[in-house]
């Protein structure tokens, strides 16, 4: 390090812009490497100005940076505040979506097995993912903004429906991509869509009375139990046939009707 340093007089003249360019250039080059001379300049800038700029910096630093999902929502024209509310849900965060994708991928890979169990695993798992996602998307534990949401002048019912729709869309799109990619274009790749809708809407309807997480768990367990008991002796895809699909549609309709009648329970 050089032995050359600024004195107070030089610091004042530099700060006031009175140094000739060459001397100023030397000062500037020196300042980058000298802590002591930099501190000589501190009193040359009014505290009020520094405080004002710092307040702006602190503001910008404390404002959270919107995540990729929130930016996507904004890009497709969702209002800022709505996007923030929806993106607050855990199941719309990247880790959750990544985990879902991984689970589906393995299930779909397993379906390549010659036995029918592999395909069955995929068809069973695909409808459960949105149920789990919806179950943790709102409610006391699943929503980090739950307390704020209660106090906000915003319909909880509307928020719940919006979040569920977003979860359903994202996980269904995921399952569809994986299904079509690995299972080919057969109808089987989409056979879980109605069961998924039925299970999700059932979870929502039950959530009007019970904790959404419990509802999600119960619905998922029931689904698993039914699938296993029906296919225990001989695995078949009968559950996903025409009659089954109509049944799922009926469950979905009934659940939505129930949900509509009980919508006040959510606020």
């Amino acid at each position, binding site marked *: 390090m050089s032995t050359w340093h600024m004195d107070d007089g030089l610091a004042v003249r530099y700060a006031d*812009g009175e140094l000739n*360019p*060459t001397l100023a250039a030397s000062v500037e*080059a020196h300042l*980058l490497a000298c*802590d002591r001379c*930099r501190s000589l300049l501190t009193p040359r*800038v009014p505290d009020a100005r*520094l405080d004002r*700029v710092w307040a702006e910096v602190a503001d910008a630093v404390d404002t959270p940076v919107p995540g990729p999902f929130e930016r996507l929502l904004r890009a497709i024209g969702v209002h800022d505040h709505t996007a923030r509310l929806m993106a607050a849900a855990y199941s719309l965060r990247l880790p959750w979506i990544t985990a879902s994708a991984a689970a589906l991928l393995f299930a779909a890979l397993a379906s390549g097995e010659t036995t029918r169990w592999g395909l069955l695993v995929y068809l069973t798992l695909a409808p459960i993912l949105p149920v789990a996602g919806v179950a943790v998307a709102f409610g006391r534990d699943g929503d980090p903004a739950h307390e704020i949401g209660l106090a906000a002048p915003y319909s909880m019912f509307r928020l719940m429906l919006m979040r569920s729709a977003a979860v359903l869309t994202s996980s269904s799109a995921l399952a569809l991509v994986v299904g079509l990619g690995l299972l080919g274009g057969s109808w089987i790749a989409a056979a879980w869509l109605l069961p998924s809708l039925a299970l999700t809407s059932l979870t929502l309807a039950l959530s009007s009375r019970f904790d959404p997480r419990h509802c999600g768990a119960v619905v998922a367990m029931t689904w698993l139990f039914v699938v296993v008991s029906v296919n225990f002796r001989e695995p078949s895809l009968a559950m996903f046939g025409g009659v089954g699909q109509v049944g799922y549609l009926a469950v979905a309709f009934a659940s939505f009707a129930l949900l509509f009648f009980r919508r006040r329970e959510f606020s």
Partner: protein
Amino acid sequence: MSEHETWTDARLLDAVADGDRRALEVLYGRHAPWLVIRLTRRCADPALVDEAVQDTFVAVWRTARTWKGKGEVAAWIWGIGIRRLLDQLRRRPAVPLPAYEQVMVSAEEQVLLGIEYGELGQAMSRLSPELRAVVQATVLDGLTTREAGRLLGIPAGTVKTRMMRAKALLREELV
């Protein structure tokens, strides 16, 4: 006062990378003043300078982990600061730049320079203001040819030819 005050810049920057807001505040306290003054020499509009300083420290907060850990933290901050100022200037052009205006060098300063900085200082001060501005922007401020052109309001090609002329003149003076 916290122990942060005793930390080195490098340690503070590491802490900022880990989301330590107090460390950012201490860094700001150390580096904002000289940055304000040095940027003021490049741009006369205090509002633009304030914006640039603000953007700089927000960028420090967000990109602290990209600092390689080598060299002076102050130099790293300057590199961000001058580019943020360029961004501001691009948005609102046509601001006079005092550092690049012609400055009459007094006889007294000439002598002072001669003693203090020897031949290079004299040779530098004999350059025309246009050539000196290019040397300052590229050598001292560390800007690329294109960035220097934007700061000075001239095409990048002109920056290159002026830099070549400045080098030739300095060589003549010094040899």
